[in-house]
């Protein structure tokens, strides 16, 4: 029993550390990708290729003065960012990253805890997460903040409905509420090569619910094209206009944590979690090796033909790091640990990339379009999809 507490403590510390680091660097990745979409280099000054930029941002935000404007409701003004970031960070505790593994003779799951109702837990947290934004908007005692908070809560309530319906249809196929069980149900391949993901398989492939879920995810995380709560050219910065220093950073962290949670849930529900895209017998373990070694060779090549003087040193270093990473995926005794992690991170990372890509591509919705889109388009689609899935499941189960 004591073992349980020790293992839980270690896992909590590890996941918290990795999760917060990924949060900080996700912002760097977003700035870099957006910059390259717009033909700019992006953050470049702090560290090689701006790699230390997140660290610099954290130091800057920590050392800035935490300013409380006059005439705000101080208690709720301070409570709102804490609420937002706490609720956003808790969700990671039920996300499984990989299968059961054995380290130093201890068998454990690559997951903090497996609730029987994991998916409902995440839904509950996401619906409570509205309070952080709504309270921030209200307590700031500013017109822009209030409008941002109201927009955000109306938008989140509206988009929660099609999202819940879109989640319900794969749940019908998988017949479980536990996130770990869900992934286990999607193990294996049909005809030896087609993965049994809910996106592709089952009595009725969940393509429509996947698309509806992704679109709702954009709205739930207040991202472009649904970022009306923080529309810069109308509302300054929306609900966090009056915030500074760490309380501002808390909202930022909450947004990125929510993005990671929602993409992880999409991976677990529709894309088969940590299971590879085609069987290991056909060499799916070669994909990470080739990917990383290829990236390493490209950066060494660019290091030999440098565009800037500093690249002569930095790019080969990155190249060798990438090649080393790629070769670790070829080590047989490490594979059961890192291959599931790779597939999970690859799928989640791809979805996160889509989030950033769309931010660089699409303009913002108008408010009436946003509401009409949720209620007149997404909701019926999700409902009809649920009905068809239910019928298909009822007809195929004995």
């Amino acid at each position: 029993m004591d073992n349980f507490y020790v293992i839980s403590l270690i896992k909590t510390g590890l996941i918290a550390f990795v999760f917060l680091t990924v949060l900080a660097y996700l912002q760097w990745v977003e700035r870099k990708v957006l910059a390259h979409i717009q033909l700019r280099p992006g953050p470049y000054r702090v560290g090689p290729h701006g790699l230390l930029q997140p660290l610099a941002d954290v130091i800057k935000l920590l050392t800035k003065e935490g300013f409380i404007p006059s005439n705000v409701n101080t208690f709720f003004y301070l409570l709102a960012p804490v609420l937002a970031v706490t609720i956003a960070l808790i969700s990671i505790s039920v996300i499984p990253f990989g299968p059961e593994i054995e380290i130093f003779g201890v068998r454990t799951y690559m997951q903090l805890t497996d609730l029987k109702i994991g998916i409902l837990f995440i839904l509950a947290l996401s619906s409570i997460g509205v309070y952080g934004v709504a309270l921030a908007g209200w307590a700031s005692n500013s017109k822009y903040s209030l409008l941002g908070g109201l927009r955000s809560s109306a938008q989140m309530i509206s988009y929660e409905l099609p999202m819940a319906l879109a989640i319900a249809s794969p749940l019908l196929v998988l017949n479980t509420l536990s996130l770990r069980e869900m992934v286990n149900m999607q193990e294996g391949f049909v005809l030896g090569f087609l993965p049994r993901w809910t996106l592709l398989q089952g009595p009725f492939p969940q393509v429509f619910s996947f698309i509806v879920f992704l679109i709702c995810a954009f709205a739930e995380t207040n991202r472009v094209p649904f970022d009306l709560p923080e529309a810069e050219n109308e509302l300054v910065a929306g609900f966090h206009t009056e915030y500074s220093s760490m309380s501002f950073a808390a909202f930022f962290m909450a947004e990125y944590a929510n993005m990671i949670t929602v993409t992880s849930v999409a991976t677990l529900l529709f894309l088969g979690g940590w299971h590879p895209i085609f069987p290991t017998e056909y060499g799916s373990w070669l994909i990470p090796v080739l990917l990383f070694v290829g990236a390493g060779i490209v950066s060494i090549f660019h290091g030999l033909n440098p565009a800037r003087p500093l690249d002569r040193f930095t790019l080969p270093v990155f190249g060798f790091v990438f090649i080393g990473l790629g070769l670790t995926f070829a080590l047989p005794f490490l594979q059961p640990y890192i291959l599931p992690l790779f597939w999970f991170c690859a799928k989640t990372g791809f979805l996160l990339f889509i989030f950033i890509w769309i931010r660089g591509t699409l303009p913002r919705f108008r408010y009436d379009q946003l509401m009409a889109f949720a209620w007149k388009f997404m909701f019926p689609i999700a409902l009809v999809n649920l009905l068809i899935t239910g019928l298909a499941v009822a007809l195929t189960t004995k």
Partner: protein
Amino acid sequence: MPPIDPILFFIFAGVAVLSAISLVVQTHPISSALSLIGVMGSLAVMYLLLGAEFIAAAQLIVYAGAIMVLFIFVIMLLNAGSEHGRSRSKFVKWMGIPLFAVFVGLLSYIIQSRLPDSKPVTFGSFTQATGLEIGRSLFTEYLLPFEVTSLLILIAIIGAVVLARKEI
């Protein structure tokens, strides 16, 4: 290691009672609404301690997540200010709490004496309330009440739409 269930129970029971008191005492509607969320959250933890995970999640999603968000939304939209207590009579001021205590005492005495003895509840014993069981009984045993309830909700929605529209 002491058993963790009773400790959690007393913590969250305390939070529930304190939130309930704060709900009544607060003058600002937003503070009251948030206290109500505190009550509902602690109740969800109670369900969780009993082992009814599904009901706990449903409590959070439906009450704390959906209904209270609408409450807060309306309060924010109307921008309701804090309410000032009207001057109470001396009788209410001095006798309110003792009378309330007598009422609670009577109520608990009646419940103690009149209700039949039931088996005491233990932590984690309420395991039959999984999503599967609830869904099955909703669609077989309680199908008629379930459908009648949904009809009632439909009527309420149509009524709200009719009231909100200027001309039909």
